[in-house]
């Protein structure tokens, strides 16, 4: 009895201890001292490889670099179609064109007359870099940490171990320095090849730097790029610089809104070039230095990345105008207020979708994407197929934001293949009809409905919605695949496809010449079990035309190799736009961009002379009716030739808690953190409400343990006190 009483006291004490243990929620994964603070909690799944703006390109890297580094231009946060506005620049630079003799030309001069163009960019004075040890000076004005000794290095393991920091004003020289870094022999800039074709002198600049001192340029010690002029860039004064590019390249201005063209101070390069720091993984690739609203204060890509407000930020204001619906959606409530709103952003690494989703529902992440396994729990379709959150989500105050991504997923035909591309005029005509027939048969509306939970828009051409040149409604519909009936596109019947197939020489899927059934080969990357149903579905689409589709599954490396060598017949791929210009989609089918032979981005190896000529005209002129006319004709050629099944443009769905404001998702502008606002008090209140610890299971488990212990203990005692041999017969 005494033991039982003791156990009851133990249970009560345990419950009291647990209840008193923390006034906050037990399942709170964050430090209790951060409760109620103005912090945004976000996730990242893949660790970033590069944070050096000259090397970083992928979306998981740019989500950090875009908040830290400031190129001269940025996109307007609210306006659509996307519009460039100044960031550190005083104004949008006006390009000037020159002929071969250096005479300035009119803006509408033919592209063939333009020998070079000049962008002159003036930046705002009074912008300062974030506090950083690379800029720290001693009382004599000498650099504190540019020549570190063993003693100083002994206690340095991360950037925050440096006790002193400094800053200085941003100048035009910092922008020039970064452009030179594109050609640094030690660095691998993904856009070096592209920019070397445009920025004058950049191609040869690599050789200049290599010849200077091979050992230094390979990263041994600091290579001061200020000492080696580059013809295509020039400092005009402290706040103004020029970039000189070959010919006319109107899309160049979009690159000026990317971190590749953000400033890097030479002091940072000198500081990070110290071998001992490189050995300690303290490099510019890992510890950025910028002028943006945030700075990286914790860099543990295995666990957590933390951005904190840059105390030296020059200041910026929330936009005062946007689209008509922005007012209604509350996106202009903070118009004119100073940015950024959030003090700190904690990115936690979360590799698995289940914990990520559950932590969002518990309020520990402020936003979430929607995986296919949680789609039905999160989203329902109402009215005319309009997506909205389920009642369960709505009860939690969660809202859904959707946007069509400036991306495209397509199925391509290799135009070098004799069956789907053709090798002579007659074969090409036959192959074209075959491709058109397949375009009708593969029902992408069904694909989107089944495999993307409705999150997509059937594509009519490569150009994604929201990009200049994209046409909506009847004008934009692909007439090869759709009829316009009752004010909406309707996919042509399978009979039309069958007729086209017969004209192609394959009546009912049988090759007229050989009498053999038509077999086509679909190259895909290695698939998970989840994706097998997609392939089965695709086989069924081809089966509608009695075509046998053989799936050749391989890993991504072999797949890329096949595409490069032109060994694939049909394949699927996608493209995310770099910038909001139709050129960035239409070049994917430009002949000189062919993969085979030219190693470009045209995976279908499509090469149409008229299209190529129109592309060259289109890319060199400003948006307007003339450009639209050319784009319309290009799209018409593509729809007729059908080198791709146009596939679909994905829709991004994002869920946001009620305390998360000012969200207008898009994939083009990346420096959006400064616009977001959090109601930390509401979040704190909801977290407490949603995460009350449930204690009865602990009590039940303890009770079960005790109950099961009693008979076991009794049996134990009985056994211990029993004799070795039972039931001894009495004599």
């Amino acid at each position: 009895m005494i033991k039982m009483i003791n156990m009851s006291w133990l249970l009560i004490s345990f419950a009291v201890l647990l209840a008193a243990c923390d006034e906050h929620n037990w399942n709170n994964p964050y430090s209790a001292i951060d409760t109620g603070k103005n912090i945004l909690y976000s996730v990242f799944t893949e660790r970033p490889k590069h944070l050096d703006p000259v090397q970083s390109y992928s979306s998981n890297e740019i989500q950090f670099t875009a908040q830290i580094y400031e190129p001269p231009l940025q996109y307007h946060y609210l306006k659509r179609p996307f519009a460039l506005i100044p960031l550190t620049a005083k104004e949008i630079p006006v390009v000037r064109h020159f002929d071969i003799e250096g005479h300035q030309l009119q803006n509408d001069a033919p592209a063939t007359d333009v020998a070079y163009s000049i962008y002159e960019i003036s930046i705002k004075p009074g912008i300062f870099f974030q506090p950083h040890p690379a800029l720290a000076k001693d009382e004599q004005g000498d650099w504190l940490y540019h020549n570190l000794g063993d003693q100083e290095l002994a206690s340095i393991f991360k950037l925050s171990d440096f006790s002193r920091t400094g800053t200085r004003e941003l100048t035009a020289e910092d922008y020039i320095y970064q452009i030179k870094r594109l050609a640094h022999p030690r660095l691998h800039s993904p856009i070096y090849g592209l920019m070397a074709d445009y920025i004058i002198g950049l191609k040869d600049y690599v050789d200049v730097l290599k010849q200077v001192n091979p050992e230094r340029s390979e990263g041994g010690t600091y290579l001061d790029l200020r000492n080696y002029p580059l013809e295509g860039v020039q400092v005009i004064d402290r706040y103004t610089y020029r970039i000189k590019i070959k010919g006319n390249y109107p899309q160049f201005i979009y690159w000026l809104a990317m971190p590749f063209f953000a400033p890097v101070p030479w002091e940072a390069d000198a500081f990070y070039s110290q071998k001992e720091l490189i050995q300690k993984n303290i490099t510019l690739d890992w510890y950025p230095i910028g002028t943006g609203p945030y700075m990286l204060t914790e860099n543990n890509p295995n666990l957590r990345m933390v951005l904190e407000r840059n105390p030296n930020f020059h200041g910026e204001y929330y936009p005062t105008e946007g689209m008509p619906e922005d007012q209604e959606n509350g996106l202009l409530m903070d118009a004119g207020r100073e940015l950024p709103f959030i003090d700190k952003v904690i990115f936690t690494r979360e590799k698995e979708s289940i914990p990520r989703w559950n932590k969002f529902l518990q309020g520990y992440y402020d936003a979430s994407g929607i995986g296919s396994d949680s789609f039905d729990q999160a989203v329902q379709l109402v009215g005319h197929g309009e997506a909205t959150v389920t009642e369960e989500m709505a009860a939690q105050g969660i809202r859904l934001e959707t946007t069509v991504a400036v991306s495209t997923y397509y199925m391509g035909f290799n135009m070098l293949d004799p069956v789907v591309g053709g090798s002579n005029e007659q074969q090409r005509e036959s192959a074209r009809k075959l491709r058109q027939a397949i375009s009708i048969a593969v029902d992408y509306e069904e694909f989107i409905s089944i495999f993307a939970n409705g999150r997509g828009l059937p594509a009519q051409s490569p150009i994604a919605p929201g990009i200049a040149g994209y046409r909506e409604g009847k004008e934009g519909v692909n007439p090869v695949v759709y009829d316009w009936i009752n004010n909406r596109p309707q996919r042509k019947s399978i009979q039309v496809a069958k007729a086209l197939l017969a004209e192609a020489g394959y009546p009912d899927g049988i090759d007229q010449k050989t009498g053999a059934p038509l077999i086509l080969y679909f190259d895909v990357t290695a698939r998970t079990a989840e994706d097998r149903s997609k392939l089965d579905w695709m086989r069924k689409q081809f089966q509608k035309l009695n075509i046998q589709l053989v799936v050749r599954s391989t890993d991504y490396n072999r797949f890329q190799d096949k595409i490069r060598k032109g060994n694939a017949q049909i394949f699927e791929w996608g493209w995310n736009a770099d910038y909001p210009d139709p050129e960035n989609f239409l070049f994917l089918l430009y002949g000189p961009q062919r993969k085979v032979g030219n190693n470009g981005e045209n995976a279908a190896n499509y090469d149409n002379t008229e299209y190529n000529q129109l592309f060259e005209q289109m890319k060199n002129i400003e948006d307007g009716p003339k450009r639209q006319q050319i784009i319309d004709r290009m799209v018409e050629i593509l729809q007729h030739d059908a080198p791709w099944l146009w596939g679909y443009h994905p829709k991004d769905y994002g869920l946001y808690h009620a305390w998360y404001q000012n969200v207008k998702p898009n994939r083009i502008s990346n420096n959006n953190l400064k616009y977001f606002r959090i109601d930390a008090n509401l979040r704190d209140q909801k977290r407490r409400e949603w995460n009350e610890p449930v204690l009865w299971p602990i009590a039940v488990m303890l009770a079960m343990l005790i109950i099961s212990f009693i008979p076991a203990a009794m049996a134990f005692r009985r056994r211990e006190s029993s004799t070795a041999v039972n039931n001894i017969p009495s004599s």
Partner: protein
Amino acid sequence: MLNYILRRALYAIPILIGVNLITFTLFFVVNTPDDMARMQLGIKYVSPEAIEKWKIERGYDKPLLFNQEKEGWEKLTKTIFFEKSISMFIFDFGQADDGRDIAQEIKSRMIPSLAIALPVFILGLIVHITFALLMVFFRATYIDFWGVILCVALMSISSLFYIIAGQFLVSKLWHLVPISGYESGLDAGKFLLLPVIIGIISSLGSSVRWYRTIFLEEMNKEYVRTARAKGLSERIVLFKHVLGNALIPILTGVVVVVPLLFLGSLLVESFFGIPGLGSYTIDAINSQDFAIVRAMVFWGSVLYIVGLVLTDISYTLVDPRIRLK
């Protein structure tokens, strides 16, 4: 014993070369240096020149195993295999393909891995042996019968199920601990509680059955009968004599695992967001980072060899009849 350890250390060299060769061959059958370069440089706008430059910088521009252009020993030494392998024997793992120092990463990730693996190992051992001894104590009773059934049931369930069910019940429904995450120091406790419990429960079925079999085998030996004949209680017989004599087969399975605790757990670390060596290896495989893969395989092999030597040494501690020569 010192001679024995030295001899085993020398035996380890050809084993490690063999392991290294197999890893190297398997990796490069699937990936070429060009593939690795493309993976690191990104998908868009990658030029052949950039790939070549990447390969030269990292020493992947040489032949894999045999360099026909060189003379004499250089035919073997001026190859990717030789250059990438030789430094590992002095534990210089070099840099990952993203430029980070591998030894530094291994050091920093070892602690989170051990933070889970060590409690799971020690507590698991105690719990599993205790359960097994209790089942042996109650052998041929309903407790033993249902215990074995429970063990078989626990063995039949995938460890992924334990993780998902544990996260669902304990973290999502009852809000008792965070679903995932990690902190260093004492704050790690709330993050480690659930993975440690799951680690113990998920291996309970197989371990308890194995230990039970070992103990039952000992129970039929003559010294047990002698002990009972002396009038010792069943508790003393079991926990003192049987457990002591069963230590050799237990040590065979247990000590060899000890060094491998440093390698972490792939699944648990991934689901619970623990930044350990298990997730490091998985990330490296996914990103085709050969430098990390070969370092982790080499490190794993070394630890395994160390584990085997420790097992041999431990025999001498529990059985005075055994001497290592």
